[in-house]
């Protein structure tokens, strides 16, 4: 019998939501059946010392220890899988990058001897990432498909359409038509347009759709009567760093 893949599931600074999603019935049963779960500190305390085939990582880099952990894990595995929005795009903690700290607020840190703050960043700013399972929280369906795919030794294909494609096919009324700032057109889909289907705007948690025309999008919002600050508020919720770096994002999303 073929040896099962050695898998680890780790978290750096985060909300543990992605790790808990992995513990949900559908994902966890698949995981313990199809791969060899060597390490998962949230639910097991033994310390596996060997190497991995795949390591899933949740969380955002928020302090120096996160980088140390990432580097250690990278050395021990063939592939790194960024799990969830924080890991893929930096997620909600990256809002901090856009706060005007000089003028409006002064964060007072308690005296930490060892802890060093880092600007919140996704893990691919620090280590090479091989696969991305975005979304906040990540989709169970996508996690299960990914585990099955790697267990069979098949090649994983990323979803590659904006949120609007799935949203339209579901027949949802368009939120932009209702004059709301919905990030659907510029955000990578694959979520089944979950938020717009619940009458909530897309906040861009799966990161930018890479072929999106950000200039055209922001001009449209401008015509709808929105100013820069109002666009920033939405676009900087989960993936502000990526939208800023994307072509067309320079005009609208610089610091």
């Amino acid at each position, binding site marked *: 019998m073929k040896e099962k893949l050695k898998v680890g599931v780790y*978290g*750096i*600074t*985060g*909300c*543990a*939501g*992605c*790790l*808990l*999603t992995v*513990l*949900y*019935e559908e994902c*966890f*049963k698949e995981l*313990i059946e199809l791969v060899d*779960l060597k390490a*998962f*500190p*949230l*639910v*097991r*305390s*033994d310390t596996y010392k060997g190497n991995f085939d795949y390591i899933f990582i949740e969380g*955002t880099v*928020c*302090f120096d*220890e*996160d980088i140390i952990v990432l580097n250690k894990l990278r050395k021990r595995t063939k592939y790194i899988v960024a799990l969830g929005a924080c890991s893929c795009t930096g*997620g*909600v*903690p990256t*809002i*901090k990058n856009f*706060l005007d700290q000089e003028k*409006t*607020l*002064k*964060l*007072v*840190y*308690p*005296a*930490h*001897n060892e*802890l060093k*703050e*880092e600007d*919140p960043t996704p893990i691919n700013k620090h280590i090479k990432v091989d696969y991305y399972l975005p979304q*906040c*929280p990540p989709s169970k369906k996508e996690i299960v498909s990914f585990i099955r795919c790697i267990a069979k030794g098949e090649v994983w294909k990323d979803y590659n359409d904006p949120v609007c494609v799935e949203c339209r096919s579901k027949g949802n009324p368009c939120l932009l038509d209702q004059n709301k700032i919905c990030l659907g057109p510029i955000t990578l889909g694959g979520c089944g347009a*979950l*938020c717009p*289907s*619940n009458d*909530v705007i897309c906040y861009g948690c799966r990161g930018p759709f890479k072929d999106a025309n950000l200039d055209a999008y922001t001009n449209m919002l401008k015509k709808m009567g929105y100013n820069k600050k109002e666009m920033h*508020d*939405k676009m900087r*919720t989960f993936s502000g760093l990526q939208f800023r770096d994307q072509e067309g994002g320079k005009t609208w999303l610089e610091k």
Partner: protein
Amino acid sequence: MAREITLNHICKIEGHANLNLKIEKNKVKKCELQAFEGARFFEALVIEKNIEDIQEIVSRICGICSSAHSVCSIQGLEDALGIKPTAQQKFIREMLMFGERIRSHATHLYFLALPDYFNVPSILEIGKEHKSKIDDALKIITLGNQLVEKFGGREMHPFLKIKEEMEEVDYEKILQQLKNTKPIIMRTIKLFSEINYPEISRETDYLSLHQEEDYAYIQGKILSNTGKFETEDYKKHLVENIKEYATSKFVLKENKPYMLGAMARINNNHNQLEPETKKILNEIMKKKDLEFPLKNPFYNNICQAIEILEVVNRTIKNIENAPKKEETQKIKYHSGHGVSAVEAPRGTLFHEYKIDKNGKIIYCNIITPTCQNLNMMEQDITALVNELLKKNTSKEEIVKHMEKLIRAYDPCFSCSTHFLKVNWE
């Protein structure tokens, strides 16, 4: 001779934490429980944001209690705007809290706590004859998930709006599932009440929400041994402190540690439990020769198991009395100040907001349950280790006991770490 025991990266807890213990002359000299995560500054992240975006952001404080943060933030903002939620809104919010309580307790009990009592590294090694316990755990978690999904649109970080109306829902399937899961929950209560917990007993203050009529989840006054106080007066009683060694705040009540969570709620609100839950709890108490208040922190595990049953009974009762759709109040932005407290799985959670006339946040303060439990945990660890030292217990045994105790509290360091003091200029 001084010795030190350090536990780095304690496993099977939510989030990352270290413990430093210094022992001198066979007594604990220093006990420092430190969260070991970077700060995420949520109270600063929401500043200048519009009230409609707040729930979406603060829900991300914690994956395991995202419903609690969502509900607490919405209630706090409503309070600031002077909006009264409809009966249906309260119903939806309680449902989210119920689902979350069920899965949070089941996750903690089976995945984090149980392996300690079987002397195995994880539930996966629990042995062939106990394999069904994994299925039991997953079934209860799934029940909780489905409740949150049904009323919140997804299992985690539910969609919740100040203006929420819901059409008629078909409850048959969910009622059936609640009833089907009950035998598993009864097995869970039996399992956790029959565990041989270390025997410790200490007096302390227990804090929770309290209502005369019902077991409190999202409304009520704050009750503790020293009496009741209104939610909005929380700062008069609970003081946040910063310790040099930790990224989390430590909270004291009238300068003393206190305990919250399932055991505090059961101690404070056992009279409000549903009849069946009350009966089963009383049987356990009688068998173990216990009376209220419970004094052994390890019994928090039993209380969590009991609460799963309570929540299921309450969910059934609420669904049977589900309110009809009502027109919600129109939202008009004006400046205001609001406070809300809810019972998250791990205890009382506070959110406070100040908003300006355009509906933008100008101040936010959040106190999570784990921050409030940290002092109590340190105190209990110290007492436990002192007892063990008297009996010349080996270091390995001491470490095992300490980890068990920490896990019994079910701490969530993801929640606790991200609240640092913010000074505004």
